[in-house]
């Protein structure tokens, strides 16, 4: 875990309202596994007061995060320029536990959920695997980094309006993939509704599934107790340090059939 005062070294705009910010890491790198995240804040004065959580898209000598502008914090970040100051705190949390027993990796991304999964796909490629990557969005403008994914994975895109790829939800190609009989493992990240659906499909095929959750965060490291999510036994898990990546059963419960 590091607390870095750093600067933006590169900004690109992989899709409308999205920016990919790259920043200098410390002399030593930020070590991270896919699914781990950083808390980021610019030099913003008094508002907003809290840093914002972003999954690492890559780690090492440079860190990179994908930012989608949806509110005040992400708008400020999305409009930042090379050389602007950035405070980066991380890497935090528990990432994907990469299977090494030979299961076929199926990565399922929705929206900015693509960020940790591109990192994971590259990690798998480095290990000689070519994962299946299912990428869903509302429309063609909401598919940042699709080209980068295609370099390291077999990519299937769905859009709700059919503007690119298959029309419909990402669960359709997921059903097909898990039906084809190969022993698979699902890694997913995206909006809550999608995660639950993906976990459900995986469970119905007895396929292990790891979900990366989001929750509003203040500290990012387990001390504020802000990022609670209720789990089936009535207790809470904390996204920032129990997760953000969880086995799907922990969050949604075991199959009841």
């Amino acid at each position, binding site marked *: *875990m*590091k*607390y870095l005062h750093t600067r933006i070294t590169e900004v690109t705009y992989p899709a409308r309202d999205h920016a990919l910010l790259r920043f200098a890491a410390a002399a030593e790198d930020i070590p991270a596994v896919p699914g781990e995240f950083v*808390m980021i*804040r610019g030099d913003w004065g*008094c*508002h*907003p*007061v*809290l*840093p914002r959580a972003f999954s690492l898209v890559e780690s090492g000598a440079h860190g990179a995060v994908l930012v989608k502008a949806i509110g*005040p*914090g992400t708008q400020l970040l999305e409009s930042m320029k090379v050389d602007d100051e950035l*405070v980066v*705190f991380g890497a935090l949390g528990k990432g994907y536990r990469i299977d090494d027993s030979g299961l076929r990796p199926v990565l399922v991304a929705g929206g900015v959920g693509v960020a940790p999964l591109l990192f994971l796909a590259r990690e798998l490629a480095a290990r000689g695997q070519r994962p299946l990557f299912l990428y869903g969005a509302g429309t063609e403008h909401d598919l940042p980094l699709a080209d980068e994914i295609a370099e390291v994975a077999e990519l299937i895109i769905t859009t709700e309006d059919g503007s690119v790829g298959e029309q419909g939800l990402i669960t359709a190609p997921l059903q097909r993939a898990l039906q084809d009989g190969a022993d698979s493992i699902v890694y997913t990240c995206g909006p809550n509704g999608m995660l639950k659906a993906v976990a459900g499909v995986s469970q119905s095929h007895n396929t292990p599934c790891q979900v990366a959750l989001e*929750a*509003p*965060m*203040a*500290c*990012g*490291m*387990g*001390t*504020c*107790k*802000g*990022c*609670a*999510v*209720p789990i089936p036994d009535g*207790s*809470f898990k904390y996204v920032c340090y129990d997760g953000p990546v969880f086995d799907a059963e922990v969050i949604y419960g075991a199959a009841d059939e």
Partner: protein
Amino acid sequence: MSERLRTSLGPLTLANPFVNASGTYGYGVEYASFVDVARLGGVSVKGISLLPRPGNSPPRTCETSAGMLNSIGLANIGIDVFLAETLPQLRELGVTVIVNTFATSIEDFVELAARFDNETGIAALELNISCPNVHAGGMHFGVSGAAAAEVTGAVRAVTDLPLMVKLSPEAGDIGEVARGVESAGADMISMINTIRGMVIDVDRRRPMLGQKMGGMSGPAIKPLGVRMVYEVFQQVSIPIIGMGGIASLRDALEYLMAGATAVQVGTANYSEPGISLRLADELEAWCSERDLTVTDLVGCAQGD
């Protein structure tokens, strides 16, 4: 850090006036790998109760203009685990430990205090009295001088630890509450706790937080905290630890000049976990440029 920064709060002396505020720095130990926690003026640990508490239903935090709301619900590990596991680590690290504690009845406050009194390595006890008193219709202890004095006096009777009582800005007359806890034997006062606010999610047409309301903290509340410290300074003679929205040296100076002998830093820890040490260094430089000590600053804006 030099002698200039040393600050004395009755029975408690701190190497510098920066304490991290309860609920915003965990138990302190979590930060030890990258912040020199022993150099902090002190750490007020997350409020501790007799039994562990899981906390409220989420969402538990949201942002407001220049501030935030939280409705954590005082989630904590409980006194048993704290004493068995956490306090030894804090002693080992050399942290100046302020134990923040809360209960919903006077008996529970007394039991907590009596147990902490037997331990070594606790620099002071901080009573969070902004909780509903379950035996008195749910009105919280912190809104009236009489209720605050009663719980302070009961705790005072069972502990020799330096005793700090943390005041709520929701008191109708905070001076009266301050005088009450002073007369009941508090050694010092810390203030202010959060003030309840609400944000409504206009898309869902429901309050943003699971508990609907949450305590507001951060820069937005600083003028309230400074005003209240300034008022209370005129009404009590025990030292005050000021807090609410401190995020820069200037903010800390405002509290000291208003009458605080030390300060606590809360929300600002989230964006910079080492901020208190940075501010202590900045204060050291500011004071030595002017050949002043922290003690010279306390209440210096009170004149005429």
